[in-house]
């Protein structure tokens, strides 16, 4: 009930925002700078062929490949740090300081290294998404309570059993929080990667339309990018609810 009320008011808010935007755009009447929402939807329909067939698959595969690499890398590093204190001492500060580097400013170098291939965009995506996954998973692995650990020891559990039966389940909720942040960042990463140099992709298309002063066509792929982000988020949320049933029923 409460939930439904919440989504209703959110929906009303968005509707009001779109109506104001529409009215403002019509009043300003400069379609190349401020296209009205209806104009964007029209454009989306007009460009559906090239956008969905040519550009969407490219961006989507960048995002998926980037996320898969981030998960493997992030979880791998988190596990390594949690089992080896010396690895933690060596790596953790590097991971934190890696976030101080303005990755967007660094991105052109990846274009130099990997050219216009998909990998330059994947690298940018990985660099901004592996951080929330690593840090959250690591914190999660450390969150397993000392009392539960000792209790399992008194039952004769070994290191491996404590890891799989205590640390991994304690870390899962944290991992999903990290993943939810990562999927939203992955869309940004892929788009930025494409701005810097690409031959296809939603980010690339949006930027190309800017040079042609086609406001509505700049926005159209952005709508699609946002939709990808939302859908990925919903999928992660769904998997989270499925695998953390015990939390849902509380």
């Amino acid at each position: 009930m409460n939930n439904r009320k919440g989504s209703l008011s959110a929906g009303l808010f968005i509707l009001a925002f779109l109506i104001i935007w529409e009215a403002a755009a019509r009043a300003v009447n400069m379609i190349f700078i401020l296209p009205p929402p209806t104009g964007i939807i029209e454009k989306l329909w007009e460009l559906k062929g090239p956008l969905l067939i040519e550009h969407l698959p490219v961006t989507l595969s960048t995002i998926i490949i980037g996320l898969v690499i981030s998960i493997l890398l992030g979880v791998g590093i988190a596990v390594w740090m949690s089992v080896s204190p010396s690895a933690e001492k060596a790596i953790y500060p590097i991971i934190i300081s890696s976030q101080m580097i303005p990755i967007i400013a660094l991105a052109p170098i990846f274009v130099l290294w990997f050219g216009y291939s998909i990998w330059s965009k994947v690298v940018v995506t990985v660099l901004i998404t592996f951080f929330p996954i690593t840090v959250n998973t690591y914190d999660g692995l450390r969150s397993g309570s000392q009392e539960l650990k000792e209790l399992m020891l008194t039952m004769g559990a070994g290191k491996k059993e404590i890891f799989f039966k205590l640390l991994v389940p304690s870390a899962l909720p944290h991992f999903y929080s990290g993943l939810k942040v990562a999927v939203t960042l992955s869309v940004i990463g892929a788009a930025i990667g494409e701005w810097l140099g690409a031959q296809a992709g939603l980010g690339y298309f949006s930027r190309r339309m800017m040079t042609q002063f086609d406001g509505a066509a700049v926005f159209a792929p952005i709508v699609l990018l946002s939709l990808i982000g939302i859908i990925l988020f919903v999928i992660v949320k769904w998997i989270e609810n499925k695998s953390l049933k015990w939390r849902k029923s509380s």
Partner: protein
Amino acid sequence: MSKCGQEKRKKVLEFQNVTFSYKDKQQTESTPILQRVNTAIYEREFITIIGASGSGKSTLFRLITGLENPDEGHILLNGEAEEHRLGKVGYMPQQDLLLPWRTIQENAALPIELKRVRKEEAYKRVLPLLEEFGLEGMENRFPHELSGGMRQRVSFLRATLSGSNILLLDEPFSALDAITRLSMQEWLMEQWEKQKTTVVFITHDVNEALFLSDRIFVFGEKPIRTLQEVDVPLGRPRSLKDLNQPSLIELKDQLLEQLRGKVMG
């Protein structure tokens, strides 16, 4: 009732000259908690340990379970000196400490699972026991869906499934309300008589100690050199009313006096 038969009964747990102290970071020894302690606990005995907070009761449990090892002396389980005691004694902690992501059945089966028994087999073994412990229909619930008393019963079941003949219960009922607590004490009595195990029980509550145990160990100031023992002059089965006998009231006052002296001193 227990005293005359003791000599013939088997020793399940024995401390021989046990000295123990926690080390601080510089590895220098601090004041010992136990100093050359000797004691024995016999088969099917119910022992209660009372003492003020910080008197070393939990330390004793950490030594018995094997989480800590004595600096000197030996701890014998069932007549044998055991260096590695982890996994050999059933332990029920103060909070129920059930794993929140496991169902009741999966929680109870954990100690069997850790003995490398296949999961399905372990779950199957637990199912009839849940019924016996008054938890039928709860097997697929999660811990947070159960009441405090029920969670403690799951925790107790889990401790018994360690397969050991020694059960250590660390203030298991301290978080329960007074009424639940009374019914859990009676329930524990029944279970203990059925299970034929030896129980060592920590509590703050003198009434609880008198109602449940054959012998009471009073923990005084540190370091503990000898365990002060008190025999409870009650037969079995007992009821709560038995605690109103004049001799028991006297004993209770005496115990309280002893504990209070410790706190003041």
